[in-house]
């Protein structure tokens, strides 16, 4: 099971990133727990300077931008590989 956190206080970009992530998870057929983190304290606990941020299994993959669908798919595939091992 992959743990995914989308960091963002609820602005349009964060919602879009969440949408994108959920869609990629579904299309890859992965098992993942996607959470939206809106609390500033918890967001700042990660090393991000601006939102939206994407955290997969505790690691910050991107922040301050919306990654492309391909990037997200690659990260998810890699994370799925790690989880299996």
């Amino acid at each position, binding site marked *: 099971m992959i743990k995914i956190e989308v960091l963002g206080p609820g602005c349009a*970009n964060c919602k879009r990133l969440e949408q994108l992530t959920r869609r990629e998870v579904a299309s890859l057929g992965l098992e993942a727990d996607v959470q939206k983190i809106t609390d500033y304290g918890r967001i*700042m606990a990660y*090393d991000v300077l601006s939102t939206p941020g994407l955290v997969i299994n505790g690691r910050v993959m991107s922040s*301050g931008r*919306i990654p492309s669908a391909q990037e997200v798919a690659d990260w998810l595939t890699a994370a799925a590989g790690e989880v299996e091992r």
Partner: protein
Amino acid sequence: MSLIPLESLAQLLAGGLAGLASYLAAHVLLCLLPAFYIAGAMTALIPKETITRYLGRNTPKRISYPASAAAGFLLAVCSCTVIPLFAGIYKKGAGLGPAITFLFVAPAVNILAISYTGTVIGMDMAVARLLLSLTFGVGIGVLMAQIFHQEDVARDQATDALFAGQASIGRAAVVFLLLLLGLLLVGTFRIDLLTQTRLSLELPIAGLDRLQTGLYQLLPFDAARGEEGVTAQGALLIGMLVLIGVTSWKGIEKSLDGLNRWTWLSVGLVGLTLLMASLGMTPHAGGLTLDITGKFLGVLIITLLLGWMLKTQLTEDEATNFLWESWRFVKQIFPLLIVGVFAVGVIRELIRPEWIQTLAGSNTLLGNVIGVVFGIFMYFPTLVEVPIARMFMDLGMHRGPLLAYLISDPELSLQSILITASIIGRKKTWVYVSFVALFSTLAGLLFGGWVDGLSVGLVAFYLFAILAVLAGALWWLTHHRGRTPAVELR
């Protein structure tokens, strides 16, 4: 006020509608539309690392303060960016001073606020807002760092990697940004080269003059009070704006995967609308005169270049992100502006010019303080402070207090005070708030003096004197209390 006669209620509503319509037709297009796209392009095409790498804790202060101001100008149009970046600079990076500078500069000095102020109120005001905000932003940052330097040491232990990211802007992106900036300038500057008519065309389209007369009757205006009526051209442009809204919704909001036909349609419509807005249209009985000005030709050339770059020079990812960010700004800010402008139109009917003239009609200390106090206690959403300021100006407010209001309003609102307090604590926040109030008043007094005919040299002298007093206070703080200086100019 419980017994407002129906008639005057109708008058209030008509005032609101008239204000909204003339505003949409006259001010939005050549200024706000390009400004939204520039803001979008800045967000999408300038990687944040190009600036944030100067905001780490090991950066010398003489670099980190200007970098914070630049970050406020280039990166922060949306509160999504402002607050995390503020907290990040404060807790993990360069510290309290640069963080405060960033917080001060960001809402007042972004491309949207400056260009909008320039068109609605005047270029002198926009330039004053830009320069004084930058100067005082750095000043307040340094002061805060000095006063609280002992508490400033306890910061989070974080990896420097957060600020070490390297990135550069692609050359195509730079050219694209410059072209957008050119579009904004060509659209808003009033110089002969741009405003002179090069060619007049007669089109046999009848009926537009009657439409215009009808519009004037429907939405009456009073030219003596600085109001503008809705022309036939204005009505056409409002229609185009609605079309752009619909196609952008279909083409940008609804698509997660890149661009589709609706996207290109909306981009084309934006170009067409800008061209229509830059034409001079004079309807008369039996026809329509089109005046082709230098401005029209400039807009034509630049929009064609922009379209070509968007299609062939930017990567698909860059283009998608650019359009999405621009659309996001429009979606976030435009509805607020519409409601705000309508409300301003209504309120204006209720305020008597004598009130404003008595309180802030001249450049006095009291007038400036009133401007600042009003700015602090009233909360208006992003950019709405500009039409409000325009209303005050029309009602007779002096430009000095007007600037004091314009600087303090976006800086301070209950909301921003609360968020700031949650990050840096209540004591620091209140000190910050008083500094903003003090400096906004000073900015208003100085600018008002300049407007009243004080020589540039004398204004510069006063500014210099204020800075000297500041420096003196800082020196006293650092030396007479036996503390080590927090601001090391390395």
